[in-house]
Structure formats: C-alpha cells, structure tokens
C-alpha cells in the first residue's frame, strides 16, 4: 500500500482523518465498528427539515472551491413535487494542486457514501449520483466495492437501516474535462453532453439534472456531514473561526519537504501548515510565493505566512481560499514559465462556450511563448495586461475565464521584474542564480 502523506490518526482538529490509517477502514464492517452509519441512523430518525437546520447551525461551507454555506444551499431546494430529485456528488477533483478528495475517497469511501445518503434524505431525494473523474481508477474501484457492500447490507435499497425510505447511489465516470468541476457543466456531462456550463439562474436547486431539482456538493463537504450528524452542529462549530467553522483538508504540494494532505482547524496559519506540517522549502531555497486555494487564485507571499487559512483572512489578503490546494514555489522557479504552463492549462480546458475565455486563453499562451522565446517586447507586456482585463470581471459564464486572467494578473503584479527581463532583455534571474550556485 502507498504510504499515506498527510493527516491520519487521532489528533487535535482531526475530524475527518481521525480513523485514516485504520486497517480495513474501506470495508463496511470496520467502518461501522468505528461508529460509521450512526450519523445516517440518527438522520433517518429526524425530520428532513431539522437536518437542514442542523447543517445551517454547523456553519459548514462548501469545500469545492466556492465556499458557499452548505445548509443554505440545501434549503434552496425546490419543495418536493412527487417527481425525481437528485443529490450529485462532485468528485471531479481537478483544480491544480488539489488532491484532498482523492485522499478522502481512498481512505474512507463509506464516510463519503454515508454523507451522500444523509443529504439524500435531508432534501427528500431517493437517488444520488457520484460523478468521479475518469483518471481516479482506484477511488472509483473502492467506491464501487463500497456501494456493493451497502447494497448487500441493505443500507442501499428499499429499507435502509429498517427505515421506510428507499435510497440508491450510482457512480458516473467522467472522461477528462476540468470544466466538470463547475456544477452546471458537471450536470451537462452527467446527462451525456459536452460539459459546457449553463447560465444561472435557474440554479440546480430548482432545475438541475434532467431539469429536476438537484443538490450538487463536493466530496469533502459530504464527507463532513456524518460527523456533524453524529456529534451535533454545536460540537462542529466549536472548531474554526467565527465565520469559517470546522476543519478542512489542505493539499500541500510543490517545493516543500513533506507534501501531504493536512487536516487543520480553519484559522490555522499558513506558517503552521506550510512549515510545521509540510516542512517548508528545501534547504538553500527561499519561499517565492504560494497559491492558497488552487492555481486559479491569486498568489500570496512570505509576508502572508502568519495569516489564517480561514475564508475571510485569505480574502482580506486579496486571494481566495478556493479548494485549499496550497502549492508552494521556491525561488528556483521562473514566474513567466509558470504563467505559461497555467495559461496552457486553462486554454486547453476552456469549454469554448464564452468567447473571452476561448480566445483569450490562447492569446495569453501565444504571447507568453513569444516572451519566453526571447522575441518579446514592451507591447507584449501591455497585451498580457489587456488580455487579463478582457477575460475577467464577469465576462464569462463560469469562473474558468476569470482564472486565466487571475493567473496573469497575480504573477505579473508580484513578479513584474521577471516578466520585464524576459520580454525586454531575454534574461531569467532565477535561472541565472541557479547557474551561479551550481558553479556553471
């Protein structure tokens, strides 16, 4: 078995990961022996509206990237009309630098399934879908086995845990499209179409999958639900800050000594996360910047290390907590090369629906390639600035376009000198520094 890199076992603020590392936790019998499905048991004995209230009281906010209040989202669901309604779990994790949903599914697939079933009952749905990215072969196989176990145990079926409330979960395999992280694009894909976002409103809570009311939640969000039902909203909201309750999984990667998925209480400082837990940057290097919430959010610098990782503190620093994918870059890397790689990503993954994103991403790539080839000029720097302004600020249906703009803006704002030396003088100071260090 692969070595676990990240939080596992009991510890302060280990809500989701407390049991990780327990032998056989992926099996129903072991999960139940540790209190698994007690949350569902309790939920099925409650009024559905009371569960939604419990979620509101917990203060849990969506962990997919938008950080929207979970209980509130559940309360937006159109009232039952006798027709089908769905819970859809977004397991299409693909924000660069984010690996916590994979970590959750591989360690405790039943915890996710339990959360999905509680959500189903709370919004009065009988059918859940888990949309899992196509590359996640191992988590998918583990979830398939877990669903089979639940079916055999009668927890999925007509009478889960003896209650007269039919429940079913189906897995749907994605086929490689970053845009499916956006909930309406995911629903299009689930319906067997090209994954292009829909205009909102109508929101999925009113018109979602196949035009029916649908709740779309992220893996981590749903995996947190069983704990809240077992221990109560009041216990959960003891963790975290006033507005950002609970714990969350930070995926820490890049130039750190101990990359891993770390569960921390919201409000823990980045210094604690990136240095105490992840070991900081390798010897002889300096922190250049880090992305606090996946590659789509603005970078932060060393002066932000004592900030809390809660949603408000990160926003106050001009970035966003996003998916909590923390990527650390040390001073050996070139900001312009990174900008190019990220713009290539957003250009390739643009679904093509909105012109600013479809065209702007490719323009950014072409311009950055020209700058890096040594054929750049002052006008290329101005062009990059025009591109980022023309894509951002609500000009596209979904945030993918904004992300291209944000990447250019944040890297140019923070590392203007590197862009200028590449564009105007065909020089790269990070490379030069390494050449000197290596004695070349």
């Amino acid at each position, binding site marked *: 078995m692969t070595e676990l890199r990240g939080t596992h076992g009991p510890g302060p603020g280990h809500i989701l990961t407390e049991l990780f590392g327990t032998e056989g936790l992926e099996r129903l019998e072991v999960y139940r022996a540790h209190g698994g499905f007690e949350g569902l048991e309790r939920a099925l004995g409650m009024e559905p509206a009371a569960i939604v209230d419990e979620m509101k009281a917990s203060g849990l906010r969506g962990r997919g990237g938008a950080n929207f209040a979970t209980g509130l989202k559940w309360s937006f669901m159109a009232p039952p009309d006798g027709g089908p309604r769905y819970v859809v779990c977004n397991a299409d994790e693909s924000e660069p630098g984010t690996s916590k949903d*994979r970590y959750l599914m591989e360690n405790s697939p039943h915890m996710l399934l339990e959360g999905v079933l509680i959500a189903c009952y709370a919004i009065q749905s009988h059918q859940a879908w888990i949309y899992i990215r196509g590359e996640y*072969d191992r988590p998918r196989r583990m979830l398939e086995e877990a669903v089979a176990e639940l079916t055999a145990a009668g927890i999925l079926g007509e009478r889960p845990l003896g209650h007269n409330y039919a429940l079913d979960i189906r897995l749907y395999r994605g086929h490689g499209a970053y845009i499916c992280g956006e909930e309406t694009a995911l629903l299009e894909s689930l319906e067997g179409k090209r994954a292009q976002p829909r205009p909102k409103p109508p929101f999925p809570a009113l018109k979602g999958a196949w035009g029916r009311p649908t709740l779309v939640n992220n893996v981590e969000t749903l995996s947190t639900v069983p704990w809240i039902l077992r221990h109560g909203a009041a216990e959960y909201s003891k963790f975290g800050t006033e507005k950002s309750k609970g714990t969350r999984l930070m995926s820490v*990667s890049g130039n750190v000594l101990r990359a891993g998925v770390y569960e921390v209480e919201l409000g823990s400082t980045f210094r604690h996360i990136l240095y105490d837990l992840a070991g900081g940057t390798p010897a002889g290097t300096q922190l250049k910047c880090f992305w606090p919430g996946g590659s789509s959010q603005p970078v932060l610098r060393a002066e932000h290390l004592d900030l809390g990782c809660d949603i408000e503190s990160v926003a106050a620093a001009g970035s966003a907590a996003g998916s909590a994918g923390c990527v650390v870059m040390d001073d050996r890397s070139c900001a312009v090369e990174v900008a190019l790689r990220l713009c290539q990503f957003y250009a390739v993954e643009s679904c093509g629906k909105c012109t600013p994103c479809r065209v702007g991403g490719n323009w950014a790539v072409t311009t950055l390639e020209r700058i890096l080839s040594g054929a750049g000029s002052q006008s290329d720097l101005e062009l990059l600035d025009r591109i980022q302004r023309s894509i951002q600020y609500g000009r596209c249906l979904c945030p993918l376009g904004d992300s291209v703009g944000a990447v250019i803006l944040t890297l140019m704002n923070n590392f203007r000198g590197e862009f200028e030396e590449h564009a105007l003088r065909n020089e790269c100071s990070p490379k030069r520094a390494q050449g000197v260090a290596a004695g070349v």
Partner: protein
Amino acid sequence: MPALDIAQEEAGHLSPEAMAEVAELLNLDSGYVEGVATFYSLFHFQPLGRNHFYVCTNLACMLRGSADIVARLKQQTGLSEARQVTSDGLFSFAEVECLGACEYAPMMRYHESYHYDLTPELIDRLVEQAREAAHD
C-alpha cells in the same frame, strides 16, 4: 458516455464507425456523438501505444521536475512528441493536466494506476519491463 466507454474499451480507441454505431444504438445523430466524444480528453481517436503514459506536467509536478520525466520518457522510447506511437506499437505518452495526487509529485497514470515519486531511473525500469513483457 458509458456507451462510448464500452466502444473504446473494445477497440482501444474510437473510430468514426464505432461512434456511428453508438449513435445508431442510442438513436442520436452521429455528429452529436462525435461532438461529445471529442470534448473529453480520455477518448482517443487514434490507437495508442500498448503502454501509454499519462504524465502530469501541471503546476505541482512541474515544480518537482516533471520536465525531466518527459525528457527521459522521450529518450527511452524514441518518441518525439505526445500522442505519437512507436513503430512497434509499444509506447505512447501524453502530457496531462493535474491528476490530483500532488503530494506524490512528480507522478503519472500508467495502466490504470498511479505511479508516484517518479525519477528518470524509474522511467528506465518501466520502459524496460514493458519491452521484456512484449518479448515474452
């Protein structure tokens, strides 16, 4: 998409005929089916090598040396670019976007499983093993 999945599983890639067959079975326009298939990066329209490497080169892997991994893979297989197939049909590769296992960077997906903490030497070994398996 599950239908396209089955079709691809059978032939290793999606030919225009296979997509037309899926369209007919589901009572859809074949252009529509092709439009859906070409949207997604895991559907292939040309045969891949029997050993296909999906190497992540996005941010976290890039910062930890994925360029060296791709370079070694090219050197060992003789491939010069992504989606080419070696003349013996054994190898092909693609540089792909973040595969969500950043704590193990640099990493790749190979034969439906993830390979972690890649080094050029590990690539040498995998390529060699694939060649040996082809001889047996």
